[in-house]
C-alpha cells in the first residue's frame, strides 16, 4: 500500500482567524477514492474535519473540492490517478462555512435566476404525455445530466472576480430548457442571460468543461445559449 500525504485546508470560524493547511499521512489503496481518504482522516485521525458527502459515487453532487488545483468530486477521483502528495481545498468563490464546506446559496441563487423549470403556454394541459421525437429529446440530453455540484461555476475565473455572474451551471440549466421542444420560455430566459450578468460574461476559459464530473460540454452549452440570444432562435 502506497503512503500518501494529504494537505487539507482547514478553517473553523469559532477558533481560526485564517485558514491553514494540516497534513495527514495515510496508507492508501490505488483504487481508493479521495473521499475514502477523507473518511479515514475523519473517522480515525481527526474527527473535526468537515466535508459534505452522501452517495459516494458521483451522483449527488455534494463533495466538489479543489484537488491539486483543479475541481473534482472527492468520490470520483482515485488515488491511482493522483500523485503521492495531495492538496485538498474548498471550492473557490463562495464563503467557507468550515473546512471543505462552503455556503452554496450564491450558487443556487444563480441557478434559480434562470427559471430552471418547464414553462409552457398550453391553455389546457394535455391528458396524455406531450409528444417529443427522439431527436428533439436528444437535443438537450447532455445538459440534463447536471447534478448541481458547482464544480464548473467555482472553477470559472469570471465567477471568482464577479459574484453577480450567474455562472456556468446556471447557463447549463437554462440550456436544458431553452433547447427542450416542449418549453416556451426561451425568450424570457434568453433575456435574463443577455443581461450584464449573463452568458456574455463568459470568456471561454474552458475550466468549466474540464471540471464537470458528468462530462457535460459546458462551454459548448454556453456558446449555444449565446448564439440563441444573439439570433433569438432555438
Amino acid at each position, binding site marked *: 500500500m502506497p503512503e500518501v500525504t494529504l494537505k487539507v485546508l482547514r478553517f473553523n470560524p469559532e477558533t481560526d482567524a485564517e485558514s491553514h493547511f494540516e497534513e495527514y499521512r495515510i496508507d492508501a489503496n490505488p483504487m481508493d477514492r479521495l473521499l475514502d481518504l477523507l473518511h479515514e482522516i475523519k473517522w480515525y485521525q481527526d474527527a*473535526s474535519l468537515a466535508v*459534505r458527502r452522501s452517495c459516494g459515487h458521483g451522483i449527488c453532487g455534494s463533495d466538489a473540492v479543489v484537488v491539486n488545483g483543479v475541481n473534482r468530486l472527492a468520490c470520483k477521483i482515485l488515488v491511482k490517478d493522483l500523485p503521492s502528495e495531495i492538496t485538498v481545498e474548498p471550492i473557490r468563490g463562495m464563503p467557507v462555512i468550515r473546512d471543505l464546506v462552503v455556503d452554496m446559496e450564491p450558487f443556487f441563487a444563480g441557478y434559480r435566476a434562470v427559471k430552471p423549470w418547464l414553462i409552457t403556454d398550453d391553455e389546457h394541459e394535455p391528458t396524455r404525455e406531450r409528444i417529443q421525437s427522439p431527436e428533439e*429529446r436528444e437535443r438537450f440530453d447532455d445538459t440534463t445530466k447536471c447534478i448541481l455540484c458547482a464544480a464548473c461555476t467555482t472553477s470559472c475565473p469570471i465567477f471568482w472576480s464577479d459574484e453577480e455572474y450567474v455562472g456556468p451551471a446556471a447557463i447549463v440549466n437554462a440550456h436544458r430548457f431553452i433547447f427542450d421542444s416542449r418549453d416556451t420560455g426561451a425568450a424570457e430566459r434568453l433575456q435574463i442571460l443577455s443581461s450584464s450578468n449573463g452568458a456574455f460574461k463568459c470568456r471561454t476559459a474552458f475550466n468549466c468543461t474540464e471540471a464537470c464530473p458528468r462530462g457535460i460540454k459546458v462551454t459548448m452549452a454556453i456558446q449555444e445559449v449565446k448564439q440563441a440570444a444573439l439570433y433569438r432562435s432555438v
Partner: protein
Amino acid sequence: MSDNVHVFDAVIVGAGGAGLRAALEASKGCKTAVVSKMYPTRSHTGAAQGGMCAALANVEEDSWEWHAFDTVKGGDFLADQDAVDVMCKDAVESVLELERMGLPFNRTPEGKIDQRRFGGHTRNHGEAAVKRACYAADRTGHMILQTLFQQCNKQGVEFYNEFFVLDLIIQGGVCGGIIAYEIATGEVHTFRAKSVMFATGGYGKMFKITSNAHTLTGDGPGVVYRKGLPLEDMEFFQFHPTGLYRLGILLSEAARGEGGILRNGDGERFMERYAPTIKDLAPRDMVSRAEFFEIKEGRGAGPNKDYVLLDLTGIDPEVVEAKLPDITEFARTYLDVDPLKEPVPTVPTAHYAMGGIPTNVNAEVLHSAHGEVVPGFYSAGECACVSVHGANRLGTNSLLDIVVFGRRGGLNMAEYANNNKLIDVPEDVAKSSEEWLRSITEGESTEPIAAIRKDLQEEMWDKASVSRTDEGLGQALGTLDSLKERYGKARVKDRSKVFNTELVEHMELGFMIDIAEALVISAKARTESRGGHYREDHQMREDEHWLKHTFINKTADGDTRLAYKPVTMGRYEPVERKY
C-alpha cells in the same frame, strides 16, 4: 416566541422524491415547510437508475391489473392488495404528470414515453416479460429528483436545508411537530405543525455492502421506534443482485433488461437453473440468493471465487453507451473494468427496505397493528411501509411508490391541516433533544464511532443479510447489545457548533443500531422464508402461520413487543412463486 420556534400547517421531513412530491401538493393547500438534512438534490432518489413503471402500454399491450398481479407475486403475497391496486392504477397518471412537469423521458419513434423490460414485470400473469418501465437513460431517479425540485422552486416551496430531525412531537396521541438540529449553527429548532410527514428514505447503511448513500441511516424510523410507535415488516430487506464487487455501487437491473447475462466462475448462465422462464430477470431476492449459493458452493468467479459476473459484452455497444452510460462509467471508474470488453464482477448489495413506518393508503401512520392512526402524522417513500412491496419489491416500483404515496400524503396533510387546530405543546418540548445533544458532547470518548459502525455493518452483513439462521440472528442480537453499550460510552470529540458532522454521524449511528435491532428481532421470530427474508433453517414459505405483517415496538420499560397484522387479500390467492 424565540427565533428557533417555527409554526407551519404542514412540515415534511425529507426532500427526496417522496418528500418533494408531497411538498408540491401540501404547499398548494396550506403553509408548508420541507426540512431536510441535505440539500434536496443530494437525496438518494437521484441515484435511482433503471426506471419507474406504469402500464402505459406505449410499446406493447399492458394493463394495470397485470402490473398489480406482478407486484403481489413479486412480493411473495405479503403485499396488501388494496394498496397495490391503488398504486398500480395511480401509476399511469403519475408518470404522465411527471412528463407534463418536464421530465425528459426517453421516447419511442412516435414521440411517446418509451418503456423497457424489468425484473418480475410480465404480460398476462407471468406469460413473458413486458415493457413497463418508463425511463430516462439510466438516470431516471436523477431526472425525477431534478424535475420535482424544479417544480418546488417554481412554486416557491419553503426549505430548511441541512436541518437534522431529532424528535417527533406527540401530545396526547396527536402529532404536533418536530424538533430539528441546524447543522450549520448547532442550534435546536422547534417546528410546530398540524401535520407532519416523515419521508426520510432507506437505511441500507447498516450493512457492510450497500448501494445506499452514507446518509441512509434510518433516522425517521429510528425516531418513530424510540417514541414507542411500531415499525412494520422490518425483516424484509432487499439485496440487489448486481452491486459492484466490494463497493456495492449499483448496476441497474436495466443492464439485464437490455440483455445482460449473469455468469458464474465456469461461465455458466446459472439463472437458467433457478428461473427457467425469465432467467436473469427473475425477482431480485431469487437472483441474489442464486448468486449467494453459486458463490457458497464454490462456483464463484475471480481468484477468491467470491463474486459472479455480469456480462454485457453480448449487447450492441451503441445500446450500452446510449441506454446505460452511467453504469458503464461506474464500472470503468471504480473497478477499472470496461463492460463493453469484459464482464463486470458483481455481488449482492443491500439495496432496499421493504419495511418501515406502517401507513394506510392515505399515508397516515398507524398506531398499532389494529390499524388506528396517529392523527396528523404521515409517512411516505422508502421509510414507510404501506405495504405495496410485501416481502420483496419489484424493480421500478419504488420510484412509483414515492410519487404515488408522496402525492396522496401531501393532499391529505393539507386537508387535515385545514380542518384541525395546532395542538398545544409544553414550553420545554425540545428539552429531551437538547439533553441528548449535551450528553453525547460531554466527557471523554472511549472509541471512535466509526469503529462501532464498522462492527455493526459487518455483523449485519454476516448474520442478517441474504441468508439467515436462528443461531446467527441470536448471535447478532448479542452483538447488538454490546454495540449499544459501546455506543453509550462513545462521545463526540468535536465540540464545535459549526457544521459538526461528527455529531451528525453519531446521531445517525444511534438510530441505525436501534432499527437494526428491530430488524433482527423481527427476522428471528419469522420462522419461514418469504421474499427477501430467507431462513436456511426454515426454507419454505408457510402461509398458514406467516401470511401476516410483523409489527414491532418498544414498550415503556425498554422491552420490545411483537404483534401481527393480517395481510389484506384481494384477487390473488398465494401460489408457489415460480418464474
